[in-house]
């Protein structure tokens, strides 16, 4: 009996404490749920960024633990006036991104249009197109490096069969950049295809059919109906691919190694910053390059997202 009498006495009290806690949690749940992510962001993104910013204002070199002096914006002045390595690297970064992106968009759109309407064997074609995506860029780089080897590579042997002399491909001072752009296109066009295909399949058929009845040609329908309707998707593809292409590193390092080759022929900002850190142990300058690079990416993202909003209006 005594046991049975206990619960009514204690239960309300326990329940009250529990309820108070649960109410509090319920009230603040938007913060509680977001907290882990916020801590994650703070620790793993904000701190490194802040630390890099700090290093960029010092002359840290040799070791980040060694004494370094605060030198203000000196590194920025040095880097921004460096026409030897920095500006060529900026130029290469943009050439790489712009050319790769343009070709990927055109090619991606063409392939997506081909795959848009169902056809026989569609499944297999899709699998084949997606294959390059699943390989890691380092493996892709090494594979292409073998294919493009000037002496024993498959590419030159193939050219030999059709009577064309061997090409320097990756090993040439002027052909290396176009070659790595080609590899990037090979690997990432499928990604653009997937995005555009998703956009295409979600389009309604009606405007297209109406235009067809009105006698519009295929090109007119594509140019004035499909493309405008697909614009938001195209911009998403541009956004994702351009950020990726801007910060490409693994492919360049796997194919040309440190410094982007003996003439820095494929040295983009990323490769340059890596070299400054890991070959030169010049942490101050390296951080400066990375901060400038970060600002460039943020600016590009800003422009693109604004354009996307405009299109969506």
């Amino acid at each position: 009996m005594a046991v049975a009498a206990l619960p009514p006495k204690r239960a309300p009290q326990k329940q009250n404490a529990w309820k108070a806690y649960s109410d509090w949690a319920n009230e603040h749940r938007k913060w509680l749920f977001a907290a882990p992510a916020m801590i994650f962001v703070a620790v793993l993104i904000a701190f490194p960024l802040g630390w890099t910013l700090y290093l960029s204002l010092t002359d840290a070199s040799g070791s980040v633990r060694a004494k370094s002096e605060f030198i203000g914006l000196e590194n920025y002045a040095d880097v921004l006036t460096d026409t030897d390595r920095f500006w060529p690297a900026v130029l290469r970064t943009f050439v790489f991104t712009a050319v790769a992106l343009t070709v990927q968009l055109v090619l991606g759109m063409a392939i997506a249009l081909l795959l848009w309407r169902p056809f026989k064997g569609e499944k297999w074609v899709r699998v084949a197109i997606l294959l390059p995506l699943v390989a890691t860029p380092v493996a892709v780089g090494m594979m292409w490096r073998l294919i493009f080897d000037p002496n024993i590579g498959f590419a030159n042997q193939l050219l030999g069969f059709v009577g064309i002399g061997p090409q320097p491909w990756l090993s040439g001072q002027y052909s290396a950049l176009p070659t790595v752009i080609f590899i990037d296109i090979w690997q990432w066009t499928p990604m653009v295809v997937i995005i555009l295909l998703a956009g295409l399949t979600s389009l309604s058929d009606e405007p297209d059919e109406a235009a067809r009845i009105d006698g519009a040609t295929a090109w007119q329908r594509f140019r004035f109906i499909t493309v405008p309707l697909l614009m938001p998707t195209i911009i998403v593809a541009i956004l994702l691919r351009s950020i990726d292409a801007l910060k490409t590193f693994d492919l360049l390092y796997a194919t040309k190694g440190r410094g982007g080759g003996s003439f820095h022929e494929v040295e983009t900002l990323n490769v340059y910053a890596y070299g400054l850190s890991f070959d030169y142990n010049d942490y101050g300058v390296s951080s400066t390059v990375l901060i400038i690079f970060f600002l460039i990416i943020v600016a590009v993202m800003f422009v693109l997202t604004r354009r996307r909003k405009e299109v969506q209006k």
Partner: protein
Amino acid sequence: MERRKSRVLAMTVLTTVLAGGSLAACSGGGGGGEGDAESGTVRVTLANHVWTDAIVEAIPQFEEETGLTVEVTQLGEDQLSAQYNVQLNAGTDEIDVMMYRPLQEGKLFAQNGYLADLTERVSSNADWQWDDFQQGPVDSTTFEDQVVGVPTITEREVLYYRKDLLEKAGLEVPQTLEELEAAAKQIKEQNPDIAGFVARTGKSPAVTQFSSFLYGFGGDFIDDEGNSSLDSPEAKEAYAYYGRMINDYGPANVSTDMSWPEAMAIFTQGGSAFYTEADSLYQNATDPANSQVAETVGFAPMPAGPDGSKPYNVPSWGLGINEASANQDNAWKFIEWATSKDMVMQIQKEGVPGPRTSVWQDPAGTETYPEDLAAAIEVSAENGVGHDRPLVINVGEAREIVGDPIVVGITDGDVDAAADAADEAFQQFLDDERE
């Protein structure tokens, strides 16, 4: 309602715990965790190298003798370097013994305080005989009068050549650089598909092999006053010679990115008559499994330039102890064992040139080497120069600067102008480093 609330709460708690747990796992980073106590596990970080293969095979023997456990991390050269940069910078105590390149990273690591002072340890055991180590290598692992590493592998540049091609052309083994050029020219003319000469071509990798040519012509990277001497007539001649050899008599589709694996591949696939490279890599050329020219490969000392035959003679790798390691006594036990006379003899017999004088003097130490190679090594050890790259702190950057005229030469550019530009840049670099 109540049940929904409590479910929300439970989920909150669960999420927090999971997130917290994963964060804690990030910061904990595993590891020994014992703090300062000496651990029975010696953590050794090694580079991919024939020496490493031999030592790893022998480790069970060490474990049995000492009762210690050895944990080996093995990485490629570039990855190893990057790994050290990250881990040592962060002050890790998770590396005890580290294999490092005394000429490449030695000064930097010692200056940063990454390497423990071994001065007392090397002299504490008379049986181990520190004075048995060759002076050149010992100098390279000594920083400001403190011993910070023990050399493990030494190397000198030698001439690899194809006996069959020389015979066919009716040529003697070249003794001088002049003869080498003439022979390369003749063989290339006689055999359109075969290069007369091959060597490393990558801006940074080529520097070490170019050094022996530079010394042969009477030049060096830095003069006696500590200034750049890249614009000296000797240096310019050396740059021009090296570039000409590759450009005129090199493989048809030569790239400017070759390090030793690529250059060695061309030679071992029968693509070249001559090849200058480190002697420690000779097994790549003599092992029939890797080399199509295994039967016909010969070795000779570095051909003499106007200033004589002056190949580099350097310790390419050494072992050091991480200053932050709490396990330094056991780490030293490992180094002492790995560089003991017996071990050096055993590894040298397997084809890896060691740093001990007594082993070289013992006929058993060279009996497994091709006779001509052993003779070439003996000559090179006598007249060798103790460095194969500029002896500075930031070697990576210096190599890129001094390597620039090499690639300009290989691509038939204006070597004189490139040497002048490199000289200016290198002087600036030296001034900056001296500050």
